[in-house]
């Protein structure tokens, strides 16, 4: 059977007045059926645009997918018609957004919003769809679902709203759930509830999850495999244990050592010097080289490729992926 999702050198650019923003610039990774893939990176690294590209929801203009391909169950998403895409969105691929406050429509009840997708994709009548909505609310652990289904988003707390979002996303049994910073706007104790809920539902329903976050703690807890993005590129891919035990890319290494740890003693925090580069004016060669402590001459001149170093570990670095340099020379 083919892989669930495969991104092949995807390029999504934004054509703005300031210049061309290379938001996603040759990103390749894949997701197996039923697995949780974590996508980490700081703001502006292209992780959310990658997810929007998969659903073909990049606002155009100014954005455009200009290269590469996205294969979902072996079929190119980029070659589908708009009608076929509508069939796919919310049905096979569902998404949860960061802000549960703004991604629900304030003038419809929670039930109506969940039922809409069910009616559309599963051909149920309104009454049946609303009954299914109650079941979904029960599934995501909302107390008194019969009452809540008739309530409006403003009557719910942040954690409850995120549960409604999850209920909506899961209502059509998607094969892939993309969660873009699903817990960032929530308090820690509520975040713990939502993460636990996502784990349980994944067990129960068997969908794959693409978890986009900047929080390395959430990644460590949820993901099996991790993709690290920096300035529109994948810089490293690894299994979660390997990544945290021995990060290969200097950016990943810097990121891991710059977070304060609760469970181990720590002196002064490590600092990645400088700032994330301006996406309109990226540095030549390796995009991380101005902030990298190991920079060599070649890093300034040529962009490194994502190289397989064995055991499912890929890294894009001249210094750390030793073998590739010999080939180049």
């Amino acid at each position, binding site marked *: 059977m083919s892989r669930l999702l495969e991104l092949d050198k995807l390029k999504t650019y934004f054509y703005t007045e300031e210049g061309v923003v290379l938001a996603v610039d040759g990103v390749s990774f894949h997701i197996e059926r039923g697995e949780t893939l974590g996508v980490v990176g*700081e*703001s502006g690294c292209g992780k959310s645009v990658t997810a929007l590209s998969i659903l073909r929801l990049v606002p155009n203009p100014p954005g455009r997918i200009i290269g590469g391909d996205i294969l979902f169950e072996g079929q190119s998403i980029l070659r589908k018609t708009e009608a076929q895409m509508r069939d796919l969105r919310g049905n096979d691929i569902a998404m949860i957004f960061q802000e549960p406050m703004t991604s629900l429509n304030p003038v419809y009840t929670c039930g109506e919003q969940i039922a809409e997708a069910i009616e559309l994709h599963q051909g149920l009548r309104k009454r049946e769809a609303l009954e299914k909505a109650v079941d979904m609310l029960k599934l995501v652990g909302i107390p008194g679902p019969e009452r809540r289904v008739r309530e409006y988003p403003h009557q719910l*707390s942040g*954690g*409850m709203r995120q549960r409604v979002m999850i209920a909506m996303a899961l209502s059509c049994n998607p094969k892939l759930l993309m969660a873009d910073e699903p817990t960032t706007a929530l*308090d*820690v*104790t*509520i*975040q*713990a*509830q939502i*993460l*636990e809920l996502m784990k349980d539902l994944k067990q129960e329903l068997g969908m794959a999850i693409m978890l986009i976050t*900047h*929080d*390395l*703690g*959430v*990644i*460590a*807890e*949820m993901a099996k495999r991790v993709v690290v993005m920096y300035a529109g590129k994948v810089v490293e891919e690894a299994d*979660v*244990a390997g990544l*945290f*035990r021995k990060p290969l890319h200097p950016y990943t290494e*810097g*990121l*891991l050592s*710059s*977070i*304060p*740890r*609760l*469970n181990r003693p*720590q002196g*002064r*925090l*490590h*600092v*990645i010097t400088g*700032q*994330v580069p301006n996406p309109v004016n990226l540095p030549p060669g390796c995009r991380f080289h101005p902030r990298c402590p190991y920079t060599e001459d070649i890093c300034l001149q040529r962009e490194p490729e994502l190289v397989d170093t064995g055991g499912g570990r890929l890294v894009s670095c001249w210094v750390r992926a030793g073998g590739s340099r010999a080939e180049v020379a």
Partner: protein
Amino acid sequence: MPGKRRQVAVSGEEPRGDVLVEVKDLKKWFPVTGGVFGRLVGHVKAVDGVSFYIKPGETLGLVGESGCGKTTTGRVILRLLEPTEGAVYFEGANIFDLNREQMRRLRRQMQIVFQDPYSSLNPRMTVGDIVGEALEIHGVARGRSKEKRVRELLDVVGLNPQHIRRYPHEFSGGQRQRIGVARALALNPKLIICDEPVSALDVSIQSQILNLLEDLQAEFNLTYLFIAHNLSVVKHISDRVGVMYLGQVVELGGAEELFANPLHPYTEALLSAIPLPDPELKRDRIILEGDVPSPLNPPSGCHFHTRCRWVQPICRDENPPFVDVGDEHFVACHLRKTREKQ
């Protein structure tokens, strides 16, 4: 006054001599009105009987979830909000007894760094004006000498002094937060209240600002009240940490001690809820049920009893006293002693 008065075991009536700031039984209730005539229908008890002290040169961290009252506590200490009840002693004097002029002079000693570096800087003012404004208002420096001092300050926080005529939008988030820090430092304050100073920043920028705050503290002997919801950050920077829940401090102790040996069930749950960046670590998680109750109508007795897994009848009736269990480790829980024996 509704409800039982909370016992305070922090100290007696007199302010302590060895501390810079002492907060005593502080309350800030916001009135809630309703109906056509704006009748008073209740109070949001944002801060509901908080007591702690901050020693000179130390960092006291204040953690809690949204709505727990940590930000309001910070604002009342600066008297940006008037308290409903209680006292705040700064170097022994109750700041709520001061008149306008005295308060204005005291403000030199206490400054604040805000959370959002985007909305807390006036976009129409240059960096020089933003950082120098307080110098002028307090008559410390103007003209050339003001500019000289601003350049010094920019250098101290790691910005290029030549950027003095630039506007906030020309800087990145991390750099803007440095401008906020420079502004707070301008008057050589003793106390700086840092209200979520790194939560809006990316991980790699966070550590830059945390290190800067530590360096400045060492250099200028600053005292920080560090308010944040991120426990890892608070533990890293604080000497002592207070945990707030629904307007009250439920536990306070040395940072290492509190995180290694949490005594309050809420602290325990909060600590176990944080996802740790360590995939090979296995641990038991305490998942709290439900949401934080509304501060408009907090639960009777111990505010945490509705979500506590150890709850006993006494917890519903009586607000537990905030007691020192040794080594300046305070906790407000009826069941501490019985749980210790188990």
